[in-house]
């Protein structure tokens, strides 16, 4: 026990992941080059994926890695590589008033959070619950391929339409 928090694999992983998310988030806001910011955003997405997996939502975690850390970040990097390089090194100069304002805001926000967290009663279930009874992937697979076959096939139709639409719009802009 440390500060009333039991030290288990779960809590250690949670704090490591929270640290990764916060460091990546601060890097995202403070780095000067847009390309570096895109990579820092990927770090945030990976940390959030870890939190999802820790909470027992392994499928959502994998989707987070595939779609957000994979596709969205790559798409951003692509868009940056395709556009003309602007002057992205200039940052607004930090003057005294700005820094003071930021500090006051951070203190107020932390105080409000603390007030809310302390004032709320968190109901704790009395019966033992095993959060990791079964990987959600298996449940989702059974639901998707047995109960919801038609919606699943319609999704492929939707994806095809999206693909064709992307091609049509991109071709039109080219001409």
């Amino acid at each position, binding site marked *: 026990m440390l500060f009333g928090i039991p030290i288990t694999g779960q809590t250690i992983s949670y704090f490591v992941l929270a640290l990764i998310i916060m460091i990546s988030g601060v890097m995202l806001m403070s780095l000067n080059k847009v390309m570096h910011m895109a990579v820092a955003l990927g770090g945030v997405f990976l940390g959030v994926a870890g939190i999802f997996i820790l909470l027992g939502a392994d499928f959502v975690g994998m989707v987070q890695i*595939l779609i957000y850390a994979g596709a969205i970040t790559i798409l951003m990097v692509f868009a940056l590589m395709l556009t003309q*390089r602007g002057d992205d090194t200039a940052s607004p100069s930090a003057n005294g008033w700005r820094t003071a304002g930021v500090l006051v805001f951070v203190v107020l926000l932390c105080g409000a959070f603390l007030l809310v967290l302390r004032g709320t009663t968190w109901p704790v279930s009395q019966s033992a619950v095993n959060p990791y009874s079964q990987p959600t992937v298996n449940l989702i697979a059974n639901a*998707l*391929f047995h109960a919801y076959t038609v919606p699943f096939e319609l999704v492929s139709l939707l994806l*095809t339409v999206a*693909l064709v639409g992307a091609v049509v719009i991109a071709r039109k802009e080219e001409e």
Partner: protein
Amino acid sequence: MYANGFLFVIIFLALGIILPVASLMVLGPLLRPSHPTAAKTSTYESGLEPVGDARARYNVRYYLFALLFVAFDVEIVFLYPWAVEYHALGLYGFGEMILFIVLLFIGLLYAWRKKVLEWK
């Protein structure tokens, strides 16, 4: 069981971070001789003198490939639970997935016919 499955992910993640860091930042500087000159420390660009910045503007045609990639990335999201439960789903699930992939392949054929994949 769930947590143990992801223990391997953590082990591989740790190895994946430790091995390159150890070899590039710890072992490498200890083993290699270091006599830097101006020519050695300059950026390597296929043996030519480096020109300009690393961030050149790429051809806009690459964006279509990125869009196609996103569509197929979403397809992977559906392939993943199917692959995990492949044995339990049996032939029915296999047929479903074939239909799914064929429908998406039609989209790829469309892009192919529209000469999106060609390089002019």
